[in-house]
């Protein structure tokens, strides 16, 4: 993505990267069926058109991409060797299966045999597309994240490298949570991982996903997509913990669709990355569908973490509830732009969105921009946003109890995030988020 610096003199020339030649070379390494290559080519054409157009200013004007040089990054052609990948999620619970990707290549995958016998598909996208094309093709980038949606989704659709697929057949309940790890290891690697979850009618599952770096200094790029397709009466809990090191650029288009009486609980953790921008959409398509979105964001140093969220009510009696909590320190910035959209026939909708920011330093900055767009006339839609410093009296109280200022500050941060933790029913998620926050605070090294 070349950003334009429109200075009259001495314009800094950027390397746009991801040219036609690079695309052809990339496709040649993939060894995929014709239909996949055709889709990639179509998406690359859209990507090139979108490159010529400006990004949607509503979504991107607060996301400073001027120092972003996509030309530095390229997908990794070879799979990484065995790498030590320290993850918070993996060791925190009993899992029914897991998939691990390093530098865009699946390196490990397992699923409980009992689940395999029940028809559950879980593994790497490249493998499953080859073996189960019929089940997956109608869903892949056709219902939730469309290549033509914007530049990021087109870029992703042209270059997706791997990712995790979960397919749960009708009325199958996957009790134990599953995990998916996306790792970046080598320097300047672009990861285009794709997450596709399909729950058929009455199915239920929990998928925990974590992204992380194996080094603290290697820069990387993630252009990702997440698609969550929740069938009638199905119930999905999905968590994505973004835990890259602070030199990774994270751009993602993520969308969930919930059918009649289905429910989706979606939790996002934003801890790492130099800059992260996530476009997150929840669409309630069927009567009685519900979506709960939780966010825990902790930004320090010069990080910029940005979220553009949409809750779309397309049918009557649907419910959505979004709660993002951000903590900022140093010169960090967090941007949240949220929208609740209610279609004309989505009567009796109950929509809520809320963003709370806790500012730990004078130089950090939080932008919260909630919005409502309501076309029905019998709904309950509310929103709110707060931003503030840590209350000096609370600190004083903790210090009276023998805590240092540092400890007091961190206890207050923990308490602030508890509002979100309390909504998450899965212990592994609560523990993992809390561990990630503690580690970043520097109290659990």
């Amino acid at each position, binding site marked *: 993505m070349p950003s334009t610096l429109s*200075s009259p003199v*001495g*314009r800094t020339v950027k390397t746009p990267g991801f040219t036609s030649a690079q695309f052809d070379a990339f496709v040649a390494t993939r060894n995929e069926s014709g239909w996949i290559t055709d889709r990639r080519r179509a998406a690359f054409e859209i990507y090139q058109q979108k490159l010529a157009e400006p990004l949607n200013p509503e979504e991107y*004007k607060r996301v*400073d991409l*001027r120092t972003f040089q996509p030309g530095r990054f390229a997908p990794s052609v070879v799979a990484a060797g065995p790498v030590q990948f320290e993850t918070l999620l993996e060791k925190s619970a009993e899992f029914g299966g897991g998939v691990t990707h390093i530098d865009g290549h699946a390196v490990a995958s397992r699923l409980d045999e009992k689940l395999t016998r029940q028809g559950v598909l879980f593994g790497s996208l490249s493998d499953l597309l080859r073996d189960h094309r019929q089940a997956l093709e109608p869903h892949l980038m056709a219902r939730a994240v469309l290549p033509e949606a914007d530049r990021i989704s087109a870029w992703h659709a042209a270059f997706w490298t791997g990712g995790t697929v979960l397919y749960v057949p009708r009325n199958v309940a996957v009790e134990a949570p599953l995990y998916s790890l996306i790792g970046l290891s080598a320097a300047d690697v672009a990861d285009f991982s794709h997450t596709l979850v399909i729950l058929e009618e009455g199915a239920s599952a929990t998928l925990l996903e974590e992204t992380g770096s194996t080094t603290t200094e290697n820069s990387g790029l993630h252009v990702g997509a997440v698609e969550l397709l929740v069938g009638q009466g199905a119930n999905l809990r999905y968590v994505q913990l973004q835990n890259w090191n602070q030199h990774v650029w994270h751009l993602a288009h993520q969308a969930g669709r919930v059918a009649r009486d289905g429910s989706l609980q979606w939790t996002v953790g934003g801890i790492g990355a130099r800059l992260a921008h996530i476009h997150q959409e929840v669409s309630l398509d069927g009567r009685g569908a519900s979506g709960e979105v939780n966010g825990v964001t902790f930004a320090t140093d*010069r990080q910029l973490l940005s979220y553009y969220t949409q809750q779309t009510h397309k049918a009557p009696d649907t419910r959505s509830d979004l709660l993002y909590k951000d903590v900022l320190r140093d010169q960090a910035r967090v941007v949240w732009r949220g929208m609740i959209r209610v279609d004309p026939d989505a009567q009796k909708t109950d929509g809520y969105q809320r963003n709370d920011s806790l500012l730990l330093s004078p130089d950090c900055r939080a*932008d919260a921009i909630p919005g409502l767009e309501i076309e029905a006339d019998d709904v309950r839609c509310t929103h709110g946003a707060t931003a503030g410093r840590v209350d000096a009296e609370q600190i004083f109280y903790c210090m009276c109890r023998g805590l240092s200022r540092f400890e007091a500050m961190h206890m207050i941060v923990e308490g602030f995030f508890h509002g979100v933790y309390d909504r998450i029913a899965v212990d592994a998620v609560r523990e993992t988020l809390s561990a990630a926050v503690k580690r970043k605070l520097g109290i659990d090294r």
Partner: protein
Amino acid sequence: MSEFQQVATLDEIPSGGRKSLVFDDRAVLLFRIGDDFYAVEDVCSHDGQPLTDGKLAGTSIECPRHGARFDVRTGRPLCMPAVEPIATFEVRVEGNNILLGAL
């Protein structure tokens, strides 16, 4: 980052000109006013967006969106809606080279 880095050459920027560049992973705007050079972070402290094409009058740069003005020598805000300063960088001229360092 305490080291100075070459970011431009003298003949690149005429008097009254400017150059957008990336230094220390930040977007920076370098000005030449007469024979003096000044560098500020290219982000308005009011809305967090670029000052790149803002009007320069004397030593003050005006934000193209809401009209906030900053002194490019110190980063100090000169009028509403800005109340916070913008970051500045140290500029050195060595021969034909212009070098930048973090303050």
